[in-house]
C-alpha cells in the first residue's frame, strides 16, 4: 500500500508510482476508424439485452413503496398469487432462510434490501416482486398485493437529516463488505452520516490569517437522473445452482460477486453476460436490479426478465445532490492562500458507491489550483430519497460548480481578470496538489488559454443585444481523478487465419470502447481493425475488469491489451525468426506479414508462420494494476493514478424579461495525451457538452414530501437538438510522439456546467449559485 510510505508532514509532495504504456499514432491508433458494428447500429440490429428471449421466460414487475419512510406491518400476497399467469410472488419473507438468498446487498455496505422487510426508506423502495407469463399479468398482480405501512417521520434533505434528533434512515448500518474496494475508508459514521472523507493539508487558519480577503459562499447542485435511452434490463436463469444473468450492466464482475455473495455460492457459479448497452453514464454501475431478478428466478424456478419501466428508472439511482460551503482566503495580488470546504452529498437511502464518490468529489473541491492550506470535510448523508451513486462526472461536476463559480466571484471582487486570476493559481508541472501528490503533465494553463481564446474571451464579455437580451461569456477549468487503485486484465488469441480474438470485460455502451480496444490490440500486431473481434463481456470467459467507468477503459484496458498484444507479438516473431533465420528483434509486423527490417523481400505471411510451425493459435494476456490510496485522517497520498484535465468556455444570451438562458457557443478542450480514435473521441466530448448544458439549465429531480413529482420525460427536461448552441467545438490537447492515453468520457462535463454559470453571471451581473440555472433563478439573482 502506497500510504505506508507517505510523508504527511512535508510539503515536498508524494511521487506517483503509476505509469501507463505510451502509445504512438500508427496504422490503427489515431485513425478515425468507423465504430465496430456500425452497420448493426444503423439498421436497428444491435442485440441489446432488451431483445433477450429464452424458452420459458417469465416477466417481472416490482411493487414499490408509496411512502418515503414507513414500517411495514404486513404484506399479503395471497390474492396476487392466484391472479392469472402469476408464477411467483417474492417478498422479504423468502430470504435469509436455509438455502435461500441473503436479502441485503451493496457494493460497499450491504445495506440495501433486495425487497424491504421491516421498513421502507424511500418512496419507490421495492417491497415485492412478481413474475408472470406476461408483463401485463405481472402488473395486474401487483395491484392485488396488500401492504400495510405505518408511516415514520422522514428526512427529505441533507439539512433535515443532520438536524438535531432527526429520524434515522438506518438505525444500525452494517459494517463494510470484506471484499469492498481498497480505496474506501469509513469515517465519522453517526446519525445519518453514512461516512465522511477529510483532507488536511498545511495550516488553514494560518492561511486565512495571512489572507487579505476571505470569500464564503455556498453552492448547490440538485439530484438528476442518468436517463439512459435503454432502461435497466436483466434476464436471470438458474440451472441447478448455476446462475446466468444477462444484464445491461457497466460492471459485470461486480454484479457477479454481488450475486455470488447473495446466493452463498462460489463466484464461478454465477455467469454474467453483457450485450452492448443503450447508455450507462454511471447509472448501471454495480449490481442494481440483478439481485431482485435473480431472486425471483430462484423462487419461480423459471427464467425471469425485468425491463424497468421508465418511471421506475427515475427511482433507480441519481447524481448526488450536493451543497458545498466554500471559504477561500486570497491575497490582494490574487494568490489563493487557504481553502476550507464543507461538502454535503445527499446519498439517498442507501450507501451504493457514495463512500468513494464523496472522497473524489471531496478532494476535487481544491480544484486544479496550488493552494498551500486546505481543509476539506466531505460527507455522505442518508436521506429518505432514492439512492445516489456513480454519475458521469463523479462528484466533480458538483465540486467544480462551486469552485469555478467562486473563482469568478473572487476575481471580480479583486478586480482581476478571471482568466488571469486562474493562471496565477493553476497547478503547474511538479507542483503539489492538496492530497500531497506531485502533478505531472500539468496542462491546465494551456487548456484555459486555448478555450478562452476560442470564444474571444477578452473582448465583448458582456454585450447588450437588444431591449430584452444580453450576452455574456464564461470559462472554467477542472481536474478529475480516476478510480485508484484499480485492476484490469485482458486476454487475446491470434488465430492461424491472422484474426485476433480479444477477450475483455469492458462494456460497450456507445462510448466506442470495443472499437478503440480493437485499434489498440491491432497495432502492435500489424493487423487491420477488421481482423480483430472483441468479445462481449462474459464472466465465464472474459478476464476480470473492475468496472467500465471513471473514464478508465481506453487507458487501463487499453494498456492491458497492449501488453497482451506484445506477448503475442514476441511469440510470433520468435517463431517467424526461426523460419526466416532472422533475429526476432530485426523483424516487424505489417499488413498481416512478418517482414525483416530493412529487407522487405525477407517476409512471411502470418498464416504461413502458423502452418509451417504447426501452431494452432497464439495467446497472450496483459494487465494494468494501479496503486494508490489516501490516508483516512489527512487525505494525503495518491488519489489518482493519473489526472484528467479539462476546460470549457461558453457564451450565452439571457432574456432579461423572462430570465431564460440561451447557449450560443460552447468550446471545450481536454488533455488527451494520445487520441486513439478522433471520430469517437469527438463524440464523447460532444456528449459531455450536451450533458453539461442539460445539468446547467434544465435538469432537476423535484421531490414533494419525499415523493418524486417528475418521473417522466415530459416533466423532466433534458437537452434536445433545439437547445444546441449554434457554435459547438471540441478540441483535444495531444502530446507529441509516444504519449499516454487519457480518458475523455467525462473530462469536459464539469467545466461546461461551470462555464455556462460564469457566462450567465457575466451577462446579468450576479451569480446564480443553485443549479439548474432556471429563468426564475436568473431573475431572482438579477433582482437581488
Amino acid at each position: 500500500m502506497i500510504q505506508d510510505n507517505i510523508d504527511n508532514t512535508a510539503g515536498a509532495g508524494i511521487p506517483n508510482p503509476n505509469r501507463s504504456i505510451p502509445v504512438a499514432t500508427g496504422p490503427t491508433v489515431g485513425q478515425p476508424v468507423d465504430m465496430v458494428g456500425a452497420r448493426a447500429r444503423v439498421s436497428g440490429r444491435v442485440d441489446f439485452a432488451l431483445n433477450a428471449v429464452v424458452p420459458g421466460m417469465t416477466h417481472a414487475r416490482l411493487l414499490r413503496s408509496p411512502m418515503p419512510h414507513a414500517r411495514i406491518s404486513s404484506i399479503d400476497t395471497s390474492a396476487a398469487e392466484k391472479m392469472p399467469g402469476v408464477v411467483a410472488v417474492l417478498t422479504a419473507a423468502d430470504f435469509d432462510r436455509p438455502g435461500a438468498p441473503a436479502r441485503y446487498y451493496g457494493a460497499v455496505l450491504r445495506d440495501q434490501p433486495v425487497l424491504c422487510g421491516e421498513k421502507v426508506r424511500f418512496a419507490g423502495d421495492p417491497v415485492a416482486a412478481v413474475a408472470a407469463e406476461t408483463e401485463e399479468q405481472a402488473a395486474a398482480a401487483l395491484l392485488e398485493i396488500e401492504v400495510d405501512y405505518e408511516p415514520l417521520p422522514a428526512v427529505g434533505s441533507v439539512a433535515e437529516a443532520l438536524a438535531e434528533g432527526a429520524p434515522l434512515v438506518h438505525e444500525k448500518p452494517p459494517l463494510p463488505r470484506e471484499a469492498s474496494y481498497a480505496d474506501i475508508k469509513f469515517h465519522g459514521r453517526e446519525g445519518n452520516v453514512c461516512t465522511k472523507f477529510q483532507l488536511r493539508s498545511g495550516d488553514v487558519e494560518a492561511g486565512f490569517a495571512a489572507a487579505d480577503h476571505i470569500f464564503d459562499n455556498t453552492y448547490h447542485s440538485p439530484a438528476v437522473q442518468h436517463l439512459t435511452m435503454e432502461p435497466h434490463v436483466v434476464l436471470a436463469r438458474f440451472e441447478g445452482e448455476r446462475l446466468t444473468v444477462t444484464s445491461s450492466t457497466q460492471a459485470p464482475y461486480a454484479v457477479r460477486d454481488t450475486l455470488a455473495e447473495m446466493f452463498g455460492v462460489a463466484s464461478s457459479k454465477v455467469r454474467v453476460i453483457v450485450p452492448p448497452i443503450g447508455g450507462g453514464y454511471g447509472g448501471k454501475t454495480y449490481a442494481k436490479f440483478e439481485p431482485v431478478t435473480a431472486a425471483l428466478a430462484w423462487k419461480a424456478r423459471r427464467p425471469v426478465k425485468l425491463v424497468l419501466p421508465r418511471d421506475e428508472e427515475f427511482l433507480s439511482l441519481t447524481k448526488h445532490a450536493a451543497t458545498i460551503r466554500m471559504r477561500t482566503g486570497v491575497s490582494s495580488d490574487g494568490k489563493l492562500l487557504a481553502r476550507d470546504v464543507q461538502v454535503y452529498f445527499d446519498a439517498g437511502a442507501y450507501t451504493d458507491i457514495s463512500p468513494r464518490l464523496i472522497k473524489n468529489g471531496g478532494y476535487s473541491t481544491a480544484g486544479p489550483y496550488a493552494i498551500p492550506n486546505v481543509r476539506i470535510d466531505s460527507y455522505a448523508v442518508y436521506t429518505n430519497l432514492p439512492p445516489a451513486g456513480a454519475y458521469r462526472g463523479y462528484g466533480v461536476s458538483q465540486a467544480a460548480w462551486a469552485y469555478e463559480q467562486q473563482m469568478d466571484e473572487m476575481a471580480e471582487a479583486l478586480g482581476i481578470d478571471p482568466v488571469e486570476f486562474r493562471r496565477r493559481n493553476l497547478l503547474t508541472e511538479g507542483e503539489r496538489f492538496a492530497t500531497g501528490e506531485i502533478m505531472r503533465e500539468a496542462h491546465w494553463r494551456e487548456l484555459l488559454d486555448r478555450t478562452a481564446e476560442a470564444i474571444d474571451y477578452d473582448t465583448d464579455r458582456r454585450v447588450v443585444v437588444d431591449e430584452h437580451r444580453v450576452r455574456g461569456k464564461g470559462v472554467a477549468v477542472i481536474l478529475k481523478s480516476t478510480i485508484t487503485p484499480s485492476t484490469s486484465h485482458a486476454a487475446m488469441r491470434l488465430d492461424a487465419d491472422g484474426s485476433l480474438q480479444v477477450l475483455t470485460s469492458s462494456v460497450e455502451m456507445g462510448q466506442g470502447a470495443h472499437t478503440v480496444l480493437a485499434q489498440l490490440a491491432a497495432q502492435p500486431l500489424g493487423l487491420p481493425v477488421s481482423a480483430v473481434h472483441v468479445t462481449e463481456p462474459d464472466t465465464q470467459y472474459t478476464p476480470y475488469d473492475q468496472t467500465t467507468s471513471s473514464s478508465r477503459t481506453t487507458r487501463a484496458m487499453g494498456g492491458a491489451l497492449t501488453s497482451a498484444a506484445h506477448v503475442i507479438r514476441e511469440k510470433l516473431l520468435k517463431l517467424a525468426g526461426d523460419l526466416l533465420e532472422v533475429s526476432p528483434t530485426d523483424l516487424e509486423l505489417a499488413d498481416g506479414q512478418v517482414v525483416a527490417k530493412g529487407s522487405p523481400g525477407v517476409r512471411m505471411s502470418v498464416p504461413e508462420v502458423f502452418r509451417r510451425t504447426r501452431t494452432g493459435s497464439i495467446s497472450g494476456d496483459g494487465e494494468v494494476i494501479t496503486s494508490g490510496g489516501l490516508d483516512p485522517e489527512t487525505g494525503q497520498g495518491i488519489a489518482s493514478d493519473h489526472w484528467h484535465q479539462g476546460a470549457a468556455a461558453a457564451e450565452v444570451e439571457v432574456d432579461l424579461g423572462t430570465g431564460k438562458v440561451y447557449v450560443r457557443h460552447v468550446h471545450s478542450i481536454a488533455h488527451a495525451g494520445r487520441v486513439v480514435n478522433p471520430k469517437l473521441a469527438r463524440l464523447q466530448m460532444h456528449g459531455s457538452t450536451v450533458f453539461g448544458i442539460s445539468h446547467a439549465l434544465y435538469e432537476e429531480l423535484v421531490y414533494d414530501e419525499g415523493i418524486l413529482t417528475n418521473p417522466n420525460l415530459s416533466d423532466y427536461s433534458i437537452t434536445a437538438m433545439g437547445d444546441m448552441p449554434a457554435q459547438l467545438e471540441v478540441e483535444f490537447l495531444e502530446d507529441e510522439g509516444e504519449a499516454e492515453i487519457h480518458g475523455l468520457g467525462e473530462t469536459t462535463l464539469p467545466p461546461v456546467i461551470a462555464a455556462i454559470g460564469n457566462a450567465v453571471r457575466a451577462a446579468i451581473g450576479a451569480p446564480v449559485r443553485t443549479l439548474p440555472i432556471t429563468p426564475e433563478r436568473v431573475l431572482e439573482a438579477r433582482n437581488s
Partner: protein
Amino acid sequence: MQVLRPQTTADTLRLLADGGEDTKIIAGGTALMLMMRNGLVMPEQLVSLDRLSELDRVTVEPDAVRLGALVSLRSIERSAELATVLPTLSAAVGLVANHRIRQRATIGGCVSEADYASDPPAVLTTLGCEVHVVGIGTQRWIPLSEFLVDYYQTVLQPGELVTEVRIPRPSPTARTTYLKYISRSAEDRPCVGVAAHVDLDSSGRCTDVRVAVAGATATPFTVVAATEACRGAKPDKTAWDEVAAAYSAAISPIGDARGSAAYRKHVTGELVRRALQTASTGTENGAFRL
C-alpha cells in the same frame, strides 16, 4: 375492451348512447393512449372516429373557416390555404408537441381534451372560435371560451360529440400573434403562451384587442375589461403596458417545475406586452417560440 369504428356520425352517436358512461371517444389517441397506458382511464369500450371521413374536412367560407373534428394538426399546419387565411393558428398548431403527435392528434381531440398546456385553444379563443356539439337529436354551437370549463373538462355531456370547430376569419386589418414561451429545454411544454389579436381603424387606433393566455390556468385566461379598455387607444407601449399589468395582476397561475406561480405571473405580463407589441408592429402574423 373493444374499439368500435363507425363510419357515420349518426352511427357514432348511437354507439355512444348505447355504450353509456364507460364508453370513450378516441380519435388520434395521442392523449387517450397515454392515459390508458398509465391506468388513468380504463374505458370498457372505445368509439373510434377514424373512419368518419365526413369529419376530416376543411371548409374555407367567406367569413369563417370550418375544421372537421378529425382534421389532424399536421394537416392544419401543412395547409397552404390555412396558412393564408389563419396564419397564426396554422403556425401555432405547428408548435404543438412534435410531428409525430401532430400527425395523429386532431383538432376535435385538441379542444375536447381541454389540456390547459395546449397551444391552439388560446389562439382559437382570441379568434372567437365556436365548437359544434352534437348528440342524438341535438346540436349546438358553443363559444370555445364557454366550452372549456376546467382542467381537462368541457361542457360535453355523455353521448355528445364535437363534430367541427368554426373560426371566424379575422378582419383583414387585424394582426395576430402567438408567443410560446418554454422555460426549459426545447421539447418542453409551454410555461406560458400568449395569443394576441389587434385590429386598428383607419386612423390607427385600436378597435378590437384580444389576448388569451395558455399553460398557466385551467382554461385560456382572458381579462376582457383590460382589452376592451384599449378601444380607441393608440397601439403603443403605454397601452400595452396597461394590458400587461392587468393580465399579470388578475391571473392566478399554477406553479410547477416549469415555473412557480409568482414567476408565471411575472412572465404573463412580460409576454402579453411582447405579444401585443409584435401583433401591432410586426410585419408578419405568426407564432413564435421563445
